[in-house]
């Protein structure tokens, strides 16, 4: 029994339409390559040719207009043993051009049969991306003005293993289809057809003038591209091996719980590149490991490496439900960008503590301000460590955590590429807070 279960006369196509003939030849080609129907999936696009899946006895998938290639790729990736054939029209190649090009680039192992009749038949003869220049359609009554899309060359220059153009009346079509279906990699056949409902009567196209059209458009029939076969990710189960990121170490619970006064909101306001978010994250990890609850919320512009970078941390003895910051208890200012984004310090509670750099002492703070010589800190600890050292300094100065407790907890940080530099930064912050070196305390105004 053939994989094609309908006779041409019983198909839904208009008299003289090439679709039925091409489907018959495709059926013979599929029968000829000897793949059982349960190992074939035909994915049909939308349009007249999109009705073809029902005439085949194999796995069939009929989805949305222009997206047939995406379903075919998903199916092939998951089931590399399947022969996946896409039946698409010239319209589908327009709305789905992106998928066509990218599937070729990915060297998806799918076989794309373009049933190209130069216009939209199902919807009434509108122009399509392959409509020849000057051709008449219902939406180009004075002749088409646009360059027709060469689908064969488009996929050829973008990774296809094989592309060829044939006219639907080619006596060798079955052999050519069979060869194409047997070629590994991304394969595309552009089959030129007659739409007897619209394009043929409007443009006096017939079987013999297809040759003239081919010459006129400089799109010759035959093999357009045959390259070395390189299979993409669809040919095996999964993407190419990636350089894996270091696995995230779960936070180990410490034995000693960090003594903590209650819900406290901490804000570090700096600039991109100051490692603000990672500094706050490390303190959050230490808090969680120490039996506390933490929530970290960052605020940054859509671009990276410039502009403000604000990171907020809430630490509490209880689960944190509300993760917003209304009135931070501790604010660390690291740059003018950060301060500008944070806004006026005058809105802070009198009990709040502000740490600010020596070159931008805040005039508007109603709370305790500690001035920190960031430049000196940078020289001593390194630029990458300033945020974490300053935050550590602030936590101790604010009386939130003792130097001893923080030191013990920090030493229990899991192994990682930055463990030692983080520890050094925390110790630098502790030293600063304990002996006041390079830091000048300023009483509230």
């Amino acid at each position, binding site marked *: 029994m053939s994989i094609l279960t309908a006779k041409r006369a019983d198909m839904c196509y208009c008299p003289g339409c090439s679709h039925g003939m091409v489907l018959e030849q495709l059926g013979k080609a599929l029968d000829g390559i000897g793949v059982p129907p349960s190992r074939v999936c035909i994915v049909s696009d939308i349009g007249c040719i999109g009705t073809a899946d029902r005439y085949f006895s194999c796995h*069939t998938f009929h989805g949305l207009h222009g997206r047939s290639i995406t379903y075919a790729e*998903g199916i092939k990736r998951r089931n590399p043993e399947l022969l996946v054939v896409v039946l698409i029209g010239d319209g589908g190649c327009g709305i789905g051009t992106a*998928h066509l090009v990218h599937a070729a680039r990915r060297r998806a192992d799918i076989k794309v049969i373009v049933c190209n009749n130069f216009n939209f038949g199902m919807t009434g003869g509108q122009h399509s991306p392959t409509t020849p220049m000057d051709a008449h359609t219902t939406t180009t009554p004075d002749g088409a003005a646009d360059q027709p899309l060469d689908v064969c060359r488009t996929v050829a220059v973008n990774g296809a293993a094989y592309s060829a153009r044939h006219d639907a009346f080619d006596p060798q079509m079955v052999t050519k289809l069979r060869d194409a279906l047997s070629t590994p990699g991304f394969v595309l056949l552009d089959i030129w057809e007659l739409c007897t409902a619209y394009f043929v009567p409007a443009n006096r196209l017939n079987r013999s003038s297809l040759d003239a059209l081919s010459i006129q458009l400089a799109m010759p029939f035959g093999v357009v591209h045959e390259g070395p076969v390189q299979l993409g990710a669809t040919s095996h189960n999964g993407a190419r091996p990636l350089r894996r990121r270091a696995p995230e170490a779960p936070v180990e619970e410490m034995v000693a719980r960090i003594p903590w006064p209650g819900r406290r909101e901490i804000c570090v306001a700096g600039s991109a590149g100051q490692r603000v978010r990672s500094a706050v994250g490390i303190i959050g990890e230490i808090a969680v490991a120490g039996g506390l609850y933490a929530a970290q919320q960052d605020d940054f512009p859509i671009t990276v490496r410039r502009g403000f970078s604000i990171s907020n941390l809430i630490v509490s003895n209880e689960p944190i439900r*509300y993760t917003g910051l209304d009135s931070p208890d501790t604010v660390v200012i690291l740059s003018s960008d950060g301060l500008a984004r944070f806004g006026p310090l005058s809105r802070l509670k009198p009990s709040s503590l502000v740490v600010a750099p020596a070159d931008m002492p805040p005039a508007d703070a109603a709370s305790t301000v500690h001035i920190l010589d960031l430049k000196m800190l940078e020289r001593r600890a390194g630029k990458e460590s300033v945020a974490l050292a300053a935050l550590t300094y602030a936590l101790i100065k604010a009386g939130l955590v003792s130097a001893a407790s923080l030191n013990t907890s920090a030493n229990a940080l899991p192994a990682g590429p930055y463990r030692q530099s983080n520890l050094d930064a925390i110790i630098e912050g502790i030293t600063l807070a304990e002996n006041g070196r390079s830091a000048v305390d300023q009483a509230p105004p």
Partner: protein
Amino acid sequence: MREFITGNQAVVRGALRAGCNYFAGYPITPASSILSDMVNAFAAGAGIAIQTEDEIAAIGQCIGAAMTGAKALTASSGPGLSLYSENIGLAQMGEVPLVIVNCQRMGPATGGATATGEGDVLFARHVTAGGYPLPVLAAADAASAYWLTYEAFNIAERLRTPVIVLLSKDISLTRQTVDLAAVPLSQRTDRPVASLDATYQPYNITGPDDTPLFSPIGGSQLVRFTGSIHDENGLLTTDRTKISRKLTHLRDKIMSHGEILAYVEWDCDADATTLIISYGLADGAARDAVKALRAGGAAVSHMTLYSLWPVPERAITDALSPRIERVVIPELNIGLYADELRRVIRHVPVQSIVRFDGGVISPQVIGEHVTCIGDLAMQAREVCACPS
């Protein structure tokens, strides 16, 4: 083991726990880390993850893969959900198990890529043409992002339907303290599979709320999949009886399972005259507000909705004890879900607290509104918490 992870990381963990083995996505803030984490999770071959040329290809590949038997996930933000739209309809019509995570951001179009907002709560339900229902879940924090993603897979498998899980930027990217091992999960569910049978019909159902038995594309029995209106064999039909049967089924298989899809948490005080109903990011503030109000001697009830669609109507009406005089709902949008509540709750006023500027609603704002008494406060339809 307690961990310090983002809502997006919790989504990935929930998906992997549920058996997700296919991911396709396109980068977008604030959902991108789900894409990169899935690529890393599957790098050794435990599944397939791919970055596609756009969101349309992402969901298209997921649908194709799901019909070969994969448990597929895609994740994006509002702009990407817009591009998923047509294919979500395909997944409904073709009855494809599929989980879609939408990490919401502020406003329409590009909106505020790094600002929070929860304006997609109606869009998620009405995301595609035709008007047929699909389950929509809303995470309130990292822990619920974990278990809701897990449950979304179970729902998707059991009912063969796309399921949308909503997060928002401040849930997606906020690191929170969670102990995933301590989060209770239901038993893992796989789609009902057809036995090998020469007469397999891919869309055969015994009743409108039944789920058709699955057989994979590529398996030994032939599968016919279509997004067009079809009969039990997956063939196009113009038979009104068959059309009605199919479309009634698309409605009923979701709506008749409304009770099992209703994830809510009810914190009841029998003396309460105010019921606060919250979901998403505003839920944490509502919980803190309730705690503070009770500490101040006020009686207040609270319900968290983790399921937005189908609307958990029975749970909501059950919470409306005779003493309840008003319902208050804080939302990070222009008051979208309040109107849904007004449809369900007819005899007492539903008052909105809204904010949509990228900021959050604080517990204080909710508390002040609840303690505000007098005719004006009781009759207020909406309070805006945006800075004026």
